[in-house]
């Protein structure tokens, strides 16, 4: 590496530890402590990428998370590849591989660069205006736009790294470990607050930690020395947890914050095995202290985006922290004192400064006099009007500013340089504050937005609160933290500060040029290539609100959310429109502050942990017996049990036939079960179900339908009266939690006078349903003591029983229409009882069946499935279930709605059976039903809700909802499909055993 770019003066760089890395297929060296950006700069590399729209060469611009240009792809073509990473944030490690994005074939020669020449025809809104017309061409445009406009590439294989989430609760969260953050954390921790201090960098101290200038001192010590002692002290505090490499991504209401902690990204890949890469911290803090500092503003002038143009503070950081010079012939361009601090850092190391261009006519600060003493030419009242050099800046031209700063006057002077440091003053980093709902106010003197109204127990301190001078920062931090934490002891007796800077600034949002604005390219948003010209165009075209201008010009829409240029955009808008700053709104910063990886967001919830699922007590048996599963609610339910090489259809046909001809067995454990007790339990059921419950005898079961207040069917199931004041209600599998919630709602809010108690007991029981003509024989073998005669144990009744001394409940209820028994037993015995049933049914062709067969069997009987045949728009009347709606009951949930003008309409969609003309033709569920296909547009009468081939009826059957279907029995309708029209006849929805004789059938 060229030695003259690296200075052996930084204690943050370990020069004994050389690190090799690859950038754009070339091997380079850096040192431990370098970022990818500092290491590249030390190698003399500025050009790292191409801009998004014009493909202009772009260089490293900043030294932090605000970087708009140096966006790179890490580990291309590997499972760890990651796009859109800021080179300024990547700490280098042995084996790092990075490449430029958005350029082809290479960053030095990029075909898309032609866009730069085409830029006169690529104005703001170009994409909206051009590519939307004619609409049919969009497909062609899209191909080219996507090809040329891509940012990074997303990984194609699974992420090998581990991520996790962690909750943290603390009294005080301090965000940012600069001077004010460190002081605040110390005061909080020493006064008994459980404190968490986080900073996005790998080190503490912010930009003051490398401030070795004689021009800013605290208690007569160099700032960095004073701060080091402070850091040393707080690192020993018990009450204080410190997390570096931790970036707060989101600040939500009620002091809930999300932060990303980087744990292994700085390690060589081979040291990352089995370690958590990143942690998403979910922080709930009683109090939040935001000390996020400020971001230096660039200046907006023609061609202000060339490689070699950096923020002046970045140049200072690269020298002071990393010992790297960004150039050998430097020019600084400023409107405030900041650049003079950079100048002093350069001077101290003997790095050449060709000139300083300062917008201000008068400069009056100790530090500027000191710079002048070093024979540095300062052009006062001047501005840069243009820059030159394609892949790296090599020259600038400057002109004198007019008195009002709106035009340039006099002659143009050209100056050579290979690096230009710019400083437009500072913008408080209020992103997190505004995310939390905070309201800003505009401070005229130095043209900054600062926190004004806090929405929660929080405070902003330091330069993110608009305090820029050292003295101001320290003084205000002390007083505001004392007040905020309500403490007397500040831990700081006297803090004396000296600063050689003053805060004067000459703020000009868009610097004038000798060219007309149409001929300039003054970038406001570097990442998205939005220029001052674009913003003015947007205003000319009538956009006013910043949110609209932003979307039209794409200003601030990049991965950096316009951290550098948003203020200038606002400034240019208000200057052009002649309005006050803030009048057009400030842009809203949205989480995350810096992009998060998907891995961090998902944490451990990947693979089988992506979604939780529930297993029945018999699950392992289903797995062992080759079941396919389907998800119902959060349950894994056995779907069907293919034998040999059966496909789903074959398995279901076999299962369905066996259940009617011999015996079937179903795991019904997932059905919701609610235990209802209390002296008013019967009255309660009367109110929540459509039918009457008072007269149900103990030991009997009844089917019930539950409605919403709007009269629409909500859930159904069988409820059994176990005792005088004791019922067990079953609900649909998916509806269990909601039904319980709804019942609790009525009990607690509408009918608190009722003596009723509800408990969910879904998980407490395994439920095994044995059906078919052999079911009685099978159950009598499993429970020999139980009298199964129709007289003693008729359909819709219940018995307590015992299996091997284990209590169980047996119900004679049926969802298939067959003679069947439902055995409910303590969950942990479920599998053994199931196996017992299988053993007992061995000689009777007992056949386990899954949900698909269950659905088929009940469809043969015309039983509805809530949620499949209903969709919250159907009343019981629509379902032709008038029989279950009590006429006598004065009230029940939804009763009044059953005779609203809308619900009594004759032409409502009503449930009907559908039979196809060709009995082999099975309809598609969801298919539309029409009467007249010649009519245009075709009137949709309804749709198919359930459809099967019935092996027992040897024909296709279907249920559907059809407008006015109730009165259409026998009528022919049409199901139009993609390639054909299927003729169907409206039928009774009960296809099999309308008389219910099979309920008592036995062999």
């Amino acid at each position, binding site marked *: 590496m060229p030695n003259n770019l690296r200075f052996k003066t930084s204690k943050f760089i370990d020069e004994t530890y050389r690190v090799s890395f690859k950038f754009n297929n070339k091997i380079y060296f850096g040192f431990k402590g370098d970022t990818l950006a500092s290491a590249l700069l030390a190698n003399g590399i500025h050009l790292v990428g191409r801009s998004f729209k014009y493909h202009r060469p772009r260089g490293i611009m900043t030294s932090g998370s605000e970087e708009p240009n140096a966006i790179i792809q890490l580990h291309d073509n590997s499972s760890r590849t990651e796009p859109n990473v800021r080179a300024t944030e990547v700490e280098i490690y042995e084996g790092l591989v990075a490449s430029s994005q958005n350029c082809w074939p290479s960053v030095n020669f990029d075909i898309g660069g032609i866009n730069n020449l085409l830029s006169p025809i690529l104005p703001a809104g170009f994409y909206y205006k051009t590519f939307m017309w004619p609409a049919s061409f969009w497909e062609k445009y899209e191909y080219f736009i996507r090809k040329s406009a891509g940012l990074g590439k997303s990984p194609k294989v699974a992420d090998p790294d581990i991520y996790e989430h962690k909750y943290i609760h603390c009294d005080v969260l301090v965000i940012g470990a600069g001077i004010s953050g460190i002081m605040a954390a110390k005061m909080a921790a020493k006064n008994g607050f459980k404190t968490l201090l986080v900073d996005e960098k790998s080190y503490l101290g912010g930009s003051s930690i490398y401030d070795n200038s004689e021009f800013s001192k605290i208690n007569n010590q160099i700032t960095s020395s004073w701060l080091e002692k402070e850091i040393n002290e707080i690192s020993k505090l018990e009450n204080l947890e410190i997390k570096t490499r931790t970036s707060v991504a989101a600040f939500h209401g009620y002091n809930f914050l999300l932060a990303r902690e980087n744990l292994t990204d700085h390690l060589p890949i081979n040291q990352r095995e089995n370690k958590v890469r990143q942690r998403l911290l979910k922080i709930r803090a009683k109090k939040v202290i935001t000390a996020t500092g400020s971001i230096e503003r660039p200046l907006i002038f023609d061609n202000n985006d060339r490689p070699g143009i950096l923020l002046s503070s970045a140049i200072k950081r690269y020298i002071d922290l990393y010992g790297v010079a960004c150039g050998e012939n430097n020019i600084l361009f400023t409107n405030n004192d900041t650049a003079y601090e950079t100048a002093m850092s350069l001077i101290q190391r003997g790095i050449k400064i060709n000139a300083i261009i300062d917008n201000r006519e008068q400069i009056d600060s100790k530090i500027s006099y000191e710079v002048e003493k070093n024979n540095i030419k300062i052009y006062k009242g001047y501005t840069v009007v243009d820059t030159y050099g394609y892949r790296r800046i090599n020259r600038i031209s400057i002109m004198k500013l007019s008195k009002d700063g709106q035009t340039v006057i006099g002659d143009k002077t050209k100056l050579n340089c290979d690096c230009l440091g710019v400083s437009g003053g500072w913008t408080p980093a209020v992103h997190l504050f505004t995310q939390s709902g905070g309201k800003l106010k505009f401070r005229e003197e130095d043209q900054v937005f600062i926190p004004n109204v806090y929405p929660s127990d929080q405070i902003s301190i330091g330069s993110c609160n608009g305090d820029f001078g050292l003295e101001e920062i320290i003084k205000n931090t002390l007083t505001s933290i004392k007040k905020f934490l309500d403490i007397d002891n500040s831990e700081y007796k006297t803090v004396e500060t000296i600063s050689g800077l003053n805060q004067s600034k000459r703020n000009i949002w868009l610097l004038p040029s000798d060219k007309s604005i149409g001929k300039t390219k003054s970038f406001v948003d570097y990442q998205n290539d939005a220029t001052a010209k674009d913003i003015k165009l947007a205003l000319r075209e009538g956009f006013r609100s910043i949110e609209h201008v932003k979307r039209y010009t794409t200003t601030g829409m990049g991965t950096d959310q316009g951290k550098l240029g948003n203020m200038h955009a606002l400034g240019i808008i208000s200057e052009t429109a002649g309005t006050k700053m803030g009048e057009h709104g400030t842009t809203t910063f949205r989480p995350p502050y810096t992009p998060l990886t998907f891995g961090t967001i998902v944490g451990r919830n990947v693979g089988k942990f992506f979604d939780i699922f529930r297993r029945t007590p018999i699950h392992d048996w289903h797995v062992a017996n080759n079941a396919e599963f389907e998800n119902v609610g959060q349950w894994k339910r056995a779907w069907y049990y293919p034998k040999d090489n059966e496909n789903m259809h074959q398995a279901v046909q076999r299962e369905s036939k066996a259940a009617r001809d011999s015996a079937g067995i179903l795991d019904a454990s997932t059905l919701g079960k609610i235990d209802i007790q209390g002296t008013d339990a019967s009255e309660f059921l009367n109110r929540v179900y459509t039918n009457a419950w008072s007269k149900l005898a103990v030991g009997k079961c009844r089917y019930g339908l539950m409605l919403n207040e709007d009269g629409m069917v909500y859930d159904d199931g069988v409820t059994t009266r176990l005792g005088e004041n004791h019922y067990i209600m079953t609900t649909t599998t998916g509806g269990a939690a909601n039904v319980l919630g709804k019942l609790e709602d009525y009990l*607690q809010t*509408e009918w608190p006078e009722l003596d009723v108690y509800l408990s969910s007991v879904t998980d407490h029981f395994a439920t095994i349903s044995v059906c078919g003509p052999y079911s009685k024989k099978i159950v009598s073998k499993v429970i020999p003591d139980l009298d199964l005669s129709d007289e003693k144990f008729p359909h819709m009744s219940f018995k307590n029983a015992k299996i091997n001394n284990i209590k169980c409940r047996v119900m004679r209820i049926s969802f298939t229409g067959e003679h069947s028994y439902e055995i409910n037993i303590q969950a942990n015995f479920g599998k053994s009882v199931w196996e017992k049933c299988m053993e007992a049914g061995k000689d009777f062709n007992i056949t386990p069946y899954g949900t698909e067969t269950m659905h088929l069997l009940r469809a043969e009987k015309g039983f509805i499935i809530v949620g499949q045949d209903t969709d919250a728009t159907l009343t019981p009347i629509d379902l032709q279930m008038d029989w279950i709606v009590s006429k006598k009951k004065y009230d029940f949930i939804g009763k009044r709605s059953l005779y609203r003008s809308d619900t009594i309409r004759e032409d409502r969609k009503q449930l009907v059976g559908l039979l196809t003309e060709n009995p082999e033709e099975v309809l598609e569920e969801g298919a539309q039903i029409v009467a007249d296909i010649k009519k245009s547009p075709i009137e949709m009468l309804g749709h198919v809700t359930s459809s099967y081939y019935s092996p027992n009826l040897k024909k296709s059957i279907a249920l559907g909802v059809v407008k006015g279907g109730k009165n259409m029995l026998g009528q022919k309708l049409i199901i139009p499909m993609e390639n054909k029209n299927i003729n169907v006849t409206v039928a009774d929805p009960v296809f099999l055993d309308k008389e219910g004789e099979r309920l008592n059938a036995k062999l």
Partner: protein
Amino acid sequence: MFLINCPFCGEREQSEFKAGGEAHIVRPKQPTELSDDEWAEYLFMRKNIKGIQFERWNHIHGCRKWFNMIRDTSNDQIKAVYKMGEKPPVK
């Protein structure tokens, strides 16, 4: 994410709760006596205020109790929580 002070359990994360719409809407005692319009008023009409709103919440993943909340919808500040059947502590 709110921090909600359940009147029965104390402060808990919002993720433990479920919002249940506008509060203090009483189910008519004699629905059959109501006209379609009156019933529709109960059934469908809800306020959606920018500002102080009275809401029902359920500590669904906790004590399962329903309670009322007064919330300023413009800034999500929770002004008060109180049990079902109690009078709002503030107007």
